[in-house]
């Protein structure tokens, strides 16, 4: 057998899904089964002791979910993946795999509001401290370091301001200080950016967005590069005997697979936030067209962004793929195939004009999601980021007049037509629909 390195589009269709060996089914079968029969008592014992490979119970692993996981690992260029019931479950699992009561994590302040809430409220209650830092400010990052810091968390493309993480620099910073770089790649998708190629150790994503692509399924995924050495005193959860597995030391037994094994065998097993087989199947269907969809998402978003920049009723546009964005140079470096299709703009007339604009749209859907084939719109200050303080909101790049768009796959002329008519109605104060 040759060792050809297959291209991204080929892997988006084939990775993780060879024909079903039993039936020959070419589409990935949906293994809708809670549990799996053991071949023998000996095989069962081997599986429970983490010595054999195979499925026990769908809370821990499932064949359809495993196909999705392997495909994601292939597309991100990782060693393996573990799927979760949502993006927030996936990132929480990463923290739980590396940190415990008394530990500390570093997080960029340019992240999704739900992440800020999860880290600053739920994690803090569990005794894991978090410091939010401007990830472009090396001095602030250094000042926030603690001996018990376990990871640095950033988003490739920050939600919603479109700030771009300088991955090379951040990976070097994390590694020099003895902990891994964790990158939320939701807004880029592996088509636009593969953070592992720039030194990231762990990639997390909400699979609900571009990976799914059709707004049908909530899911999350963690991909591990397998490069970070956790066999140090800083990571006792991996480098010391595990109480959950009769004293097994994960780094000693599993080498480069230690993080992935602990993530599945201890965290997913104990937390129970698994992805369902049918949901994994929907995500597999989505991934098959990821390259095609992302090309169109990127092109449509650029066209809509340029149109808005030239519109007299628009104060500003923050699209990392346009030259006007402060991080345009970083976007060109890390996202050569485009900066996704989620971006923000400020409407002239502030919060009220924004409300009228959204109410006047005919084609764009007003909802709290991104990365759908359908074009989506939301007002972050009153929705996705509303749990944040005014100060946190401004730090995350959300102003009262900010409107976030997720540009879909429709004809761009229709998207622009709808924006234009809604801007007219927003200006005239005649935005409320009959």
């Amino acid at each position, binding site marked *: 057998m040759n060792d050809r390195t297959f291209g991204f589009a080929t892997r988006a269709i084939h990775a993780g899904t060879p024909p079903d060996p039993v039936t020959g089914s070419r589409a990935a079968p949906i293994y809708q089964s809670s549990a799996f029969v053991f071949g023998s008592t000996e095989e069962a014992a081997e599986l429970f002791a983490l*010595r*054999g*490979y195979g499925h026990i119970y769908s809370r821990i692993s499932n064949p359809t979910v495993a196909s999705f*996981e*392997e495909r994601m690992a292939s597309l991100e260029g990782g060693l393996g993946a573990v799927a979760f019931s949502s993006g927030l479950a996936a990132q929480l699992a990463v923290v739980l795999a590396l940190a415990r009561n008394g530990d500390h994590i570093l997080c960029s302040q340019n992240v999704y509001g739900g992440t800020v809430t999860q880290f600053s409220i739920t994690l803090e209650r569990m005794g894991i401290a978090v410091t939010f830092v401007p990830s472009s400010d090396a001095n602030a990052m250094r000042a926030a370091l603690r001996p018990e810091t376990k990871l640095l968390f950033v988003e490739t493309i920050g939600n919603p301001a479109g700030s771009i993480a300088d991955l090379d620099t951040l990976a070097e910073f994390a590694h020099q200080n003895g902990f891994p770089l964790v990158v939320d790649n939701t807004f880029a998708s592996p088509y636009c950016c593969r953070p592992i190629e720039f030194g990231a150790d762990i990639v997390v994503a909400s699979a609900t967005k571009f990976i799914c692509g059709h707004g049908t399924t909530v899911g999350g995924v963690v991909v591990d590069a397998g490069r970070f050495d956790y066999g140090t005193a800083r990571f006792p959860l991996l480098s010391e005997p595990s109480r959950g597995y009769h004293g097994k*030391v994960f780094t000693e037994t599993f080498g480069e697979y230690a993080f992935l094994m602990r993530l599945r065998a201890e965290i997913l097993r104990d937390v129970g936030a698994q992805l369902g087989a049918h949901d994994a199947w929907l995500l597999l269907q989505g991934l098959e067209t990821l390259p095609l969809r992302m090309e169109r998402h990127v092109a449509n978003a650029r066209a809509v962004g340029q149109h808005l920049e030239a519109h007299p009723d628009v104060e500003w546009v923050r699209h990392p793929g346009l030259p006007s964005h402060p991080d345009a140079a970083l976007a060109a470096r890390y996202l050569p195939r485009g900066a996704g299709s989620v971006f923000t703009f400020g409407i002239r007339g502030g919060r009220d004009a924004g409300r009228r604009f959204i109410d006047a749209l005919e084609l764009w859907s007003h909802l709290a999601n991104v990365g759908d084939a359908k074009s989506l719109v939301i007002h972050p200050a009153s929705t996705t980021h509303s749990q944040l303080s005014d100060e946190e909101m401004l730090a995350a790049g959300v102003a009262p007049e900010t409107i976030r768009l997720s540009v879909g796959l429709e004809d761009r002329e229709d998207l622009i037509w709808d924006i234009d008519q809604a801007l007219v109605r927003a200006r005239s104060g005649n935005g409320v629909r009959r």
Partner: protein
Amino acid sequence: MILTQPGEIRELLARSKTIAMVGASRDPLRPSYTVFSFVRTGGLFSIAPINPKLEEIDGIRAYPSLAEYARANGAPDIVDVFRNPASVLPVVDESIAVGAKAIWFQYGVINDEAIARADAAGLDVVVDRCIKVEIARSNGGLATAGLNSGIITSRRAGVR
């Protein structure tokens, strides 16, 4: 020859039937036991421990040396090495002496002189890899755990 490509390693496993494991342990917490048990219960290979301190592991007779193993079973296809890197030169010499076809150095067992000597003697050499992982890569095991096997195929039959 030093094998680094996944395809080369897959072919080595496909043409091999017997494995002699140097440094096998009965302690279930030791990585060597994990690998031993995985290979033994997998049924694809005949595996035997090489350890002068043990009589057997899980009912499989242990041999005090590779020479003793070879006297009873013939030369092993693969000598799998779980030893301190500093003490593997004698294992290489013994492997060459008994006519082993390949020597496999597990994770972290890296000794440049040992690698060069085995390579020069014509053995296939695998370095800093786990034989359990590579067997599972070929037979679908890795894929069940969401791990990236690197296998892309539209053929129905298994790789092995």
